[in-house]
């Protein structure tokens, strides 16, 4: 295992310490329990937004804490959902009296821990709503299973809900928006290589030189399918057609197209993916009205990418364009 770390068990803590000394002007960092809140929290009268999840997906979520997006983020150990006490403390730290939205990615661990945290926070008199994001079309949607994973749409929901909260909307409104974003977004991911968690020290799966995993999540799990390596255009076709047909996105739709790197893929390749995605959508009469290209929801050093499409309307577009001032997303501020 080759990593720039000191101690596999201290990765999250030491990175938080780095964040604290680097960005004390923008965020307040608590090490124990571990959470990051915007420096000026709580904002009185504004709905606060809290997210969290295992570490190893950076810049998600800590990089999205700031005006116009998240009020707090709770990181767990690498790929391990954080615990209710972290979420509870973060929730208390950001509550400005208008309630707190928990944006939760649909993984059993995240859902259960956030559930317990919400119960505790409610016990403390804080108004909490939780919305579970489950946009990953690689997984069958079923009542009898853990259901679809939450992936790229999480970031879009965090941005859009952050903007809505800034407009002074109520907790119920912001939560409803979050559900709508989730309902209008679909994602799929693929990997060219595995990743290695500091704790395990071994690659998360073995893959031949001419193979790729299609339908991966963001935790180094093997994908749904193992296939022969293909050119970028074919990979884009393979993923985007499933994404498009699932919602479905139709001719005439305006979308936000999010091409996300899994951590180990050079940016230049993401632009090739975007080029091919743009062509494919154009052929289907779908217009990309906004885009996001880069490493935003990663899986350590995994090489690969994911594609997320969100159907836009004027409201969503204007919420997307609203100012945001975080470490990883910043405009208009």
């Amino acid at each position: 295992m080759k990593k720039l770390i000191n101690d596999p068990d201290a990765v999250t803590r030491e990175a938080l310490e780095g964040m604290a000394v680097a960005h004390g002007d923008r965020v307040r960092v608590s090490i124990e329990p571990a959470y990051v809140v915007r420096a000026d929290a709580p904002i009185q009268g504004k709905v606060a937004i809290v997210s969290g999840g295992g570490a190893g997906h950076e810049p998600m979520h800590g990089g999205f804490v700031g005006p116009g997006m998240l009020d707090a983020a709770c990181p767990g150990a690498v790929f391990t959902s954080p615990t209710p006490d972290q979420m509870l403390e973060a929730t208390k730290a950001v509550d400005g009296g208008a309630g707190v939205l928990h944006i939760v990615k649909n993984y059993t661990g995240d859902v259960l821990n956030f559930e317990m945290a919400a119960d505790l926070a409610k016990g403390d008199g804080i108004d909490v709503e939780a919305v579970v994001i489950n946009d990953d079309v690689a997984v069958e949607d079923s009542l009898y299973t853990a259901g679809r994973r939450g992936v790229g749409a999480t970031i879009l929901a965090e941005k859009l809900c952050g903007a809505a909260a800034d407009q002074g909307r109520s907790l119920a409104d912001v939560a409803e928006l979050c559900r709508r974003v989730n309902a209008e977004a679909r994602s799929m991911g693929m990997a060219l290589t595995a990743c290695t968690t500091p704790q395990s020290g071994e690659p998360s799966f073995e893959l031949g030189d001419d193979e790729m995993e299609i339908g991966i999540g963001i935790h180094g799990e093997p994908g749904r399918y193992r296939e022969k390596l293909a050119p970028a255009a074919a990979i884009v076709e393979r993923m985007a057609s499933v994404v498009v047909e699932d919602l479905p996105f139709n001719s005439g739709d305006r979308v936000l197209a999010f091409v996300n790197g899994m951590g180990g893929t050079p940016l230049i390749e993401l632009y090739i993916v975007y080029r091919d995605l743009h062509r494919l959508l154009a052929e289907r009469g779908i217009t990309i009205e906004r885009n996001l290209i880069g490493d935003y929801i990663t899986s350590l050093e995994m090489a690969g990418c994911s594609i997320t499409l969100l159907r836009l309307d004027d409201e969503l577009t204007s919420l997307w364009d609203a100012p945001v001032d975080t470490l990883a997303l910043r405009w208009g501020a």
Partner: protein
Amino acid sequence: MSPSDTLGHAAVEDWLRRFAADIAANKALLVKLDTAIGDGDHGTNMDRGMRKVLEKLDDLDGGDVGATLKAVGMALVSSVGGAAGPLYGTLFLQMGQSAAGRDSLDLEGWTAALDAGVKGVQARGKAQEGDKTMLDALLPAVEALRSAAGEGAGLAEALERSAGAARAGMEATIPLEARKGRASYLGPRSVGHQDPGATSSHLLLRAAADAARAG
């Protein structure tokens, strides 16, 4: 020393320490199993939690088995994270609830506590037997306790049979396709692998049987 037919507070502590040691010894195995069909953290998650539990046990005073089990549950909830944190946490919290105020557990008390714990896991995780989760080890273990009691077995013997049932349940997860937890994302590719949570649950019940025999 012949095995006693109750688990006193010391025996419960012994059980927890054995479990912590078994988790530490099997950390790499649990990581490996979780790497195959999950995200490779089950061993480190459980080990982090059980190390926290050991710290708690060192600070304990009083002999209330229920209070101890609750403290264990709280420690797990606030240190394990992932799916296993709330699930094992709930198991212990519910066991503690069931055993509240008791300074020892006989077979009936132990069975009731474990049953309450397992029901808690089911309520929280909404999984059923055959979904390829820890419940596939836990549910048969409760069942085995009941039939052992029906056949008049003593505490140690009953816990031995419950550990055996947990092992069989754990092994029976191998051919299953997962329907809950992270492994479910793999669909058919989850077949052929032993569930990590069922494996740690077997360790839990194996440690209980060992504590009962020693106690």
